[in-house]
């Protein structure tokens, strides 16, 4: 069965600093990978997704992620964090190619941004 590990429960960065959130997955076939963000009082919002092709994926709000098959990783990055980026971030893997939306989520990383 597939699984997702987000090793960092909580990360604090200063506004303007760079950010990298780690995600490792376990899946036998080609994974379908996603990053979602969850802000207080709001539903989960898709930041970006990887299905195939270019391993560097651009998303919304200036985020990007890089798929590294050799490391089973899909880390999320942002060059300069804004205070509004404070939220919880979830990495997820789609289970089957035909039903990529049936997701297995990691436990999340809570991002705090200091001014």
């Amino acid at each position, binding site marked *: 069965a597939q699984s997702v590990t987000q090793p960092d429960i909580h990360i604090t960065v200063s506004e303007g600093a760079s950010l990298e959130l780690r995600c490792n997955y376990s899946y036998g076939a080609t994974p*379908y990978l996603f990053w979602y963000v969850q802000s207080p009082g709001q*539903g*989960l*919002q*898709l930041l970006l997704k990887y299905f195939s092709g270019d391993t560097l994926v651009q998303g919304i709000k200036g985020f990007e992620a890089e798929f590294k098959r050799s490391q089973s990783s899909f880390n999320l990055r942002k060059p300069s964090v804004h205070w509004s980026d404070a939220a919880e971030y979830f990495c997820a893997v*789609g289970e089957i*190619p035909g039903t990529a939306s049936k*997701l297995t*989520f990691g*436990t999340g990383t809570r991002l705090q941004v200091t001014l």
Partner: protein
Amino acid sequence: GAGVSQTPSNKVTEKGKYVELRCDPISGHTALYWYRQSLGQGPEFLIYFQGTGAADDSGLPNDRFFAVRPEGSVSTLKIQRTERGDSAVYLCASSLGGTQSGELFFGEGSRLTVL
């Protein structure tokens, strides 16, 4: 509305009671998903509808949980004989359906507390 709507936003009930949670997906979305998010965890898949039928209910924890989508739009998640361990946020999501659609649109969730 434009997004996925879930009601009630909060539900407090007593152990042993019956609960219904409602989800109104985005108009035109044929796929509908229920997830459960416990405190400090990522969302956990419960059930997936394609149209009116449950395409995959492998995530339902036991036979106290049941979901319907009789007309292929609104869905109701039903929990019988609630237990304290059922306390969680129940998330609904919808998507256009089909293969590799990938993007789920989530509602804000229904927070269930079982006393």
